[in-house]
C-alpha cells in the first residue's frame, strides 16, 4: 500500500491550485505604481564598431524619460563570471569585460546598444526608432575552428586571440598515449552537440524599484537563485551593499538553467530605477529571449575509445571545442570543464581518461548551463563512441557496456570524482525488462514488413548532482560556495514556516519539502508552509540548479529540523519533569519513555513562546533554528535508458515507438514529482535529438529566433503513453546526505539524446544500410541524406 503522507507519498501539489485558476504571481504580473518601461535597442549585426549613438531626437519623443547608452555605465561594473578556469599551462582564462550596455563594439546579434525608458512600452519602442546608430559592420566569426585561426576577426580587441582557455584534465598525456598505442582496437568519432535554447515558457522579466525613503532597491526578477543575483549584482556590478538590496523571484515559469545567470537587463532596471527615482520594468519578448537568454551546449568533439583484445575499455581521450559566445556568462566557463570533464569516465572502469577542451569566443549569444550542463555533452560522446565500437567489433552493445561497468563502490575515477554508490547492473536489468529486449526482433520484422526500418538504442549515464562541496569547487576556481540554508520557524500554535534557499520554478518544493518536515515531527503537512524566492524573507541560499534542491537545501532543512527537535525535547522534558534523554517524539507527541506521560507538539511550541513554565535559565524562549549545509561530495544519480524508433526510408522521418528509463535516484521523497521531472527531461532530450537547433549563418545572423524557426517538442512528437515508462525502483541511497537522495531534475535530458541517436543508427545499420554517424537534430533531411549517401 503506497504511503498517503510523509516521505515516499505523492500528495497532490498544493501550488497547483493557484496555477490552475490563474492566480499565480509571476514577475510580469507585478506592477509598481508609477513604473516606467524600458525597451532595449539591440544590435542587428553580429560584430560592429560603434562610431556614434545619437539619441537627441529620440529623447524629445513623447513619454521618453531618459535614454541610456554604454557611456552611462562607464565606471559601473560589468557582468561578472562566477568561475575562473586555469588553463593547461597554469594561466588564468581570458576574461573580457561584459558591459551592461555595449561600449565601443557590438559582439553578437542582440547585444544591447541603448535602453529607452519611457512612460509606456509603446513610447519607448517608438523612440528607439528615432535613435541614430552609426555602427560600422566588422567581419564576424561564428565557427569555432575558424575563430582560432591566426587571421580570425577578434571578438575582443584587447585579447590576443579568441581562445578563452585551453584546458586539460584527467590522465597525463604519456600514460594516455601509451594506452592508445597498446590498444587492440580504437574507435574514433567526431560529433556535434547542437546549440540549444532553454526556452522556459515564461520569458525573462525584471522590475527595478528604488525607494528613496530608505535608499533601498528591490529587484523583482525571473531567477532560479535570488541570493546569487543579489550578491553578483550588488557586489560586482552596481556597488549596492546587500542590506540595501532585495531580490525577489516570485512564481517563475520554468528555468532549466537559463534563469541562473545574472543578466544585463536585471542590472539595468535596478540601476535606472535609482537614476530616475521611479520603478523600471522590462518584459522580454520571445524573439528577444532567443537573442539574450544564454544558450546551451554547442560543443564540437573528437572522442577516441581504446579497447584491449578482450574488449575491455583501456582509455578514453576527448578533444572538444566549446563555444562561449561573445561574453562569459555567469557559470559558462565551468560547464565544458568541471561539469563535463569529471563525468567522462561514465559508468565504466576505464583506467585512463583524458579530457581536452578549448573554450572559444565567437560572435554569438553567450552559452551557459542548460539542463544537465556539461553532463549531457559528456554522456553523448561516450555513449555514442561505445555504440560505434560495438558495431565495429561486431559485439552486442549492451554486453559491451555490462562488461566494463564499475561494480565496486566507492569508486575513484581518473577524472577526480568519487562515486559513493550505485548499481549499474540493476538499472540495466530493469531497462531490458521494460523495453522487452527479447521481443525486439519480432517488432523489427513487423516494421520491415511495412517497409520501415526499426532500431533499438540504449544508453547508460551518470551525473554529478547535489552541487556542490564548497572547498572542492573553490579549489577548482568557483568564486562562490555551493552550500545551502534553511530556517525552520515554529510558531506559538505549532504551525511552521520553513524558509529555504532553494527556489521552486516547477519542481514542487512547496509540496515536497513539508513532506520531509512532517515525517520528522509526526505532524500534519498542512501545518507547514515553505517560503522561498525573496532575499528579505530567507536567510541565504544558492538556489536551484544542478539537481541540488533536496540533496543540499533539503539536507539543511533536515539539520534545522533536528535542532528544533532537540530544543523541543528539552522543553518537553521540563514540562514532563523528566530527563531530556528520556523524551521520545512520535506522531507529534512527546512522551517519557516507558510511561504514559506525554505532551503534544502544540503544548511544547506554546511553552516556547509563552514561557511561564519554562527552563529559562538553560534555554532561550522561542523555537526557530537555521542550518547551513555544505555537501561532502556530489551525488551520483545514474540510469539506463532504451528507445525504439521507426525510420521511414522514403522520407527520413523518425518516429519514437517506445521509450523506457530506469533511473537510480537513491531515496525518493515524492514519486509523482520525480516521474514528472523525468518526463520533462526526456522531452527536452528528445527535442535535442530530433528537433531543436539554434542556428546561425556564417555572418552571425541568428536564424532561429522564434517558435516558427526553432522546433520545440509538441505533444504529438513524443511517445504515446502505452509505449512509455519511467522507472525509479532501483535505489542505492546516497551515502553522505541525511535523506539519501541524489536528485532527479536533469537525468532525462542527460540520458535521452544518445539513446535516441543510437536507436536511429541501429535502424540505419539494418536493411542493408550502413551509416556510421549522424548529427543532432536527426531531422528527416539528414536521415534521408545519410540513407541516400
Amino acid at each position, binding site marked *: 500500500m503506497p504511503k498517503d503522507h510523509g516521505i515516499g507519498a505523492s500528495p497532490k501539489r498544493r501550488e497547483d491550485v493557484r496555477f490552475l485558476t490563474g492566480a499565480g504571481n*509571476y514577475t510580469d504580473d507585478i506592477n509598481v505604481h508609477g513604473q516606467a518601461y524600458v525597451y532595449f535597442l539591440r544590435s542587428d549585426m553580429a560584430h560592429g564598431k560603434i562610431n556614434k549613438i545619437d539619441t537627441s531626437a529620440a529623447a524629445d519623443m513623447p513619454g521618453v524619460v531618459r535614454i541610456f547608452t554604454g557611456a552611462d555605465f562607464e565606471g559601473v561594473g560589468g557582468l561578472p563570471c562566477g568561475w575562473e578556469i586555469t588553463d593547461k599551462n597554469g594561466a588564468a582564462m581570458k576574461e573580457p569585460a561584459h558591459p551592461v550596455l555595449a561600449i565601443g563594439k557590438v559582439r553578437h546579434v542582440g547585444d544591447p546598444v541603448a535602453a529607452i525608458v519611457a512612460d509606456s512600452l509603446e513610447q519607448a519602442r517608438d523612440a528607439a526608432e528615432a535613435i541614430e546608430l552609426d555602427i560600422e559592420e566588422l567581419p564576424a566569426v561564428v565557427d569555432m575552428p575558424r575563430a582560432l585561426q591566426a587571421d580570425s576577426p577578434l571578438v575582443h580587441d584587447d585579447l590576443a586571440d579568441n581562445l578563452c582557455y585551453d584546458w586539460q584534465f584527467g590522465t597525463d598525456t604519456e600514460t594516455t598515449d601509451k594506452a592508445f598505442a597498446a590498444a587492440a582496437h580504437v574507435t574514433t568519432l567526431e560529433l556535434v552537440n547542437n546549440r540549444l535554447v532553454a526556452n522556459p515558457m515564461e520569458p525573462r522579466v525584471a522590475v527595478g524599484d528604488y525607494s528613496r525613503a530608505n535608499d533601498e532597491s528591490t529587484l523583482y526578477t525571473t531567477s532560479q537563485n535570488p541570493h546569487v543575483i543579489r550578491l553578483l549584482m550588488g557586489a560586482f556590478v552596481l556597488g549596492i551593499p546587500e542590506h540595501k538590496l532585495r531580490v525577489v523571484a516570485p512564481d517563475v515559469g520554468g528555468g532549466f538553467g537559463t534563469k541562473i545567470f545574472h543578466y544585463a537587463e536585471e542590472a539595468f532596471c535596478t540601476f535606472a530605477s535609482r537614476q530616475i527615482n521611479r520603478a523600471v520594468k522590462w518584459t522580454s519578448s*520571445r524573439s528577444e529571449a532567443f537573442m539574450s537568454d544564454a544558450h546551451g551546449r554547442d560543443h564540437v568533439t573528437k572522442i577516441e575509445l581504446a579497447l584491449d583484445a578482450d574488449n575491455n575499455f583501456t582509455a578514453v581521450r576527448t578533444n572538444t571545442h566549446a563555444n562561449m559566445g561573445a561574453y562569459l556568462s555567469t557559470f559558462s566557463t565551468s560547464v565544458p570543464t568541471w561539469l563535463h570533464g569529471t563525468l567522462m569516465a561514465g559508468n565504466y572502469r576505464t583506467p585512463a581518461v583524458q579530457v581536452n577542451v578549448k573554450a572559444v569566443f565567437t560572435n554569438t549569444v553567450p552559452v551557459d548551463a542548460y539542463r544537465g550542463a556539461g553532463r549531457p555533452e559528456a554522456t553523448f560522446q561516450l555513449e555514442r563512441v561505445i555504440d560505434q565500437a560495438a558495431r565495429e567489433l561486431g559485439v552486442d552493445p549492451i554486453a559491451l557496456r555490462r562488461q566494463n561497468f564499475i561494480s565496486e563502490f566507492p569508486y575513484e575515477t581518473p577524472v577526480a570524482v568519487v562515486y559513493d554508490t550505485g548499481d549499474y547492473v540493476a538499472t540495466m536489468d530493469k531497462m531490458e525488462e521494460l523495453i522487452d529486449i527479447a521481443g525486439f526482433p519480432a517488432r523489427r520484422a513487423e516494421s520491415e514488413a511495412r517497409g520501415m526500418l526499426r532500431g533499438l538504442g540504449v544508453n547508460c549515464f551518470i551525473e554529478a548532482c547535489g552541487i556542490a562541496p564548497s572547498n572542492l569547487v573553490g579549489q577548482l576556481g568557483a568564486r562562490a560556495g555551493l552550500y545551502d540554508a534553511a530556517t525552520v520557524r515554529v510558531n506559538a500554535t505549532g504551525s511552521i514556516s520553513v524558509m529555504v534557499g532553494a527556489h521552486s520554478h516547477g519542481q514542487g518544493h512547496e509540496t515536497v519539502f513539508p513532506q520531509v518536515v512532517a515525517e520528522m515531527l509526526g505532524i500534519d503537512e498542512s501545518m507547514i508552509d515553505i517560503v522561498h524566492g525573496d532575499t528579505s524573507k530567507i536567510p541565504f541560499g544558492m538556489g536551484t540548479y544542478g539537481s541540488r534542491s533536496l540533496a543540499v537545501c533539503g539536507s539543511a532543512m533536515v539539520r534545522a529540523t533536528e535542532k528544533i527537535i532537540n530544543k523541543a525535547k528539552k522543553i518537553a522534558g521540563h514540562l514532563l519533569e523528566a530527563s531530556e534523554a528520556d523524551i521520545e517524539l512520535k506522531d507529534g507527541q512527546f512522551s517519557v519513555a516507558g510511561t504514559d506521560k506525554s505532551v503534544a507538539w502544540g503544548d511544547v511550541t506554546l511553552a516556547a513562546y509563552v514561557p511561564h513554565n519554562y527552563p529559562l535559565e538553560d534555554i532561550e524562549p522561542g523555537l526557530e533554528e537555521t542550518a547551513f549545509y555544505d555537501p561532502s561530495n556530489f551525488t551520483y544519480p545514474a540510469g539506463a535508458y532504451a528507445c525504439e524508433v521507426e525510420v521511414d526510408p522514403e522520407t527520413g522521418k523518425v518516429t519514437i515507438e517506445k521509450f523506457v528509463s530506469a533511473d537510480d535516484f537513491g531515496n525518493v521523497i515524492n514519486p509523482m514529482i520525480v516521474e514528472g521531472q523525468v518526463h520533462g527531461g526526456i522531452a527536452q532530450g528528445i527535442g535535442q535529438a530530433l528537433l531543436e537547433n539554434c542556428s546561425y549563418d556564417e555572418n552571425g545572423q541568428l536564424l532561429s529566433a522564434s517558435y516558427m524557426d526553432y522546433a520545440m517538442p509538441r505533444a504529438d512528437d513524443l511517445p504515446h503513453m502505452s509505449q512509455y515508462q519511467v522507472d525509479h525502483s532501483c535505489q542505492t541511497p546516497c551515502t553522505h546526505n541525511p535523506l539519501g537522495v541524489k536528485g532527479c531534475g536533469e537525468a532525462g535530458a542527460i540520458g535521452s539524446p544518445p539513446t535516441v541517436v543510437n536507436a536511429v543508427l541501429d535502424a540505419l545499420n539494418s536493411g542493408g544500410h550502413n551509416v556510421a554517424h549522424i548529427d543532432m537534430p536527426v531531422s528527416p533531411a539528414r536521415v534521408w541524406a545519410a540513407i541516400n549517401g
Partner: protein
Amino acid sequence: MAEVTMKVNGKAVTKSVKGNTLMTDFLRDELRLTGTHVGCDTSQCGACNIHVNGSLVKACTMFAAEADGAEVSTIEGQSAADGTLNVIQQAFQDHHGLQCGFCTPGMVMAAASLLKENPKPSEAEVRDYLEGNICRCTGYHNIVKAILAASGQDVSAIAAE
C-alpha cells in the same frame, strides 16, 4: 480610443481602449486578469488561450476592440464561485499535469474546447489538438493523461509512470 463592451467571465465590462491594444494587454493590464500569459508573441505557444463566443482564441493575436460585444472566458472564470476546481482543472492536479504553471491556463482552456468538440477523444486526438500549445516542463505525458481522465475515460491502466 474606442469604447468596448464585453462580458468577461460572466461580468459586463465597458472600457476605453486604443485600436492597437492587444486582448492579452487588455485582460492583463486593464482587467488585472493576469492568468492569461504571453509566452511567444507569435501564436505558437498557446499560453494566452481564451474563449471568445465559445471558440478557442489566442489572445495575443486579437485586438481588444475585436471583442466588442463578445462573451469572453478566461482561466479565472473556470472554477466555481467558491473556488472549487472544474473537472479539467481537477484532473490536471490529480495527474500532475503541470509543473511551473505558466502554460497551464492555456492548456486548460484548450482542453475545455477539445472536450466540448469531442467529449471522448483518443490519445492521438488529444495530442493532435494540442498542436498549438507548448509546455516545456511536463513532456505532455501527464497533460494528455489529465485530459483523457477529465473526459471520463479510465486512465488507471496506463502505467502509473
